[in-house]
């Protein structure tokens, strides 16, 4: 089955960890992930400035490694990210900000990528919504 996965919560929220576990299980089960889309506070799940306490799981790092290892399409909504201070080098330069906290394997793009993924997938699975 082809899954599109949307994440709406930060890395420290339990639903982000559940989304990661679901995505790992989907691949392990032989399914395809057409795209991961991070929206609303989900953009924090992609920030590489998250510092997890030593006795807690570093979910943002695990996301980064998972997406990079499997060469998945990990898209972070640009409007939601800018509003929350999650910037890649290009956006930091554009808006003259000193901090860059988004890097490969993540891509910043628009909501069209969410709709495109929904159309391409058999199922959309959401984590961390209201």
């Amino acid at each position: 089955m082809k899954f599109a996965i949307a994440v709406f919560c930060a890395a420290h929220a339990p639903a982000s960890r559940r989304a990661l576990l679901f995505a790992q299980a989907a691949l392990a089960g032989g399914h395809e992930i057409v795209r991961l889309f991070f929206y609303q506070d989900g953009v924090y799940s992609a920030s590489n400035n998250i510092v997890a306490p030593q006795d807690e799981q570093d979910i943002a790092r695990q996301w980064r490694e998972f997406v990079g290892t499997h060469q998945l399409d990990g898209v972070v909504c640009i409007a939601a990210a800018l509003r929350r201070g999650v910037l890649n080098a290009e956006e930091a330069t554009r808006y003259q900000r000193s901090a860059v906290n988004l890097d490969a394997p993540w891509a910043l793009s628009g909501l069209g990528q969410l709709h495109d993924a929904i159309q391409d997938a058999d199922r959309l699975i959401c984590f961390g919504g209201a």
Partner: protein
Amino acid sequence: MAQSLLIISRQAPWSGPSAREALDIVLAGGAFDLPIGLLFLDDGVFQLARHQDARAVQQKDLSANLQALGLFGIDDVFACGHSLSARGLPPPDNAQALDSQAISRLIDRYDQVITL
């Protein structure tokens, strides 16, 4: 055939960016001519309240975006009748009020659902 998508918007307009961001998904889908529905549920029905003054809380007015739904080809706009009456709101002009059974059927009708 394109997959249909129902957005369920559950947050009040001034509680944070959630209401605006839910609406942005709807408008983006409309721009791509996709079959999109929008349901206001729980505190989300406050987005339909009349005579809101966004400037009083130093916010941008969300109602202009709601008015744009028709321009984007989004005609399937619904509101939970129970949520409206529980908050003392009248039936809205720009959304069709539904009872809980009709909401169940509505959710069944769509291929995918996003709740924000």
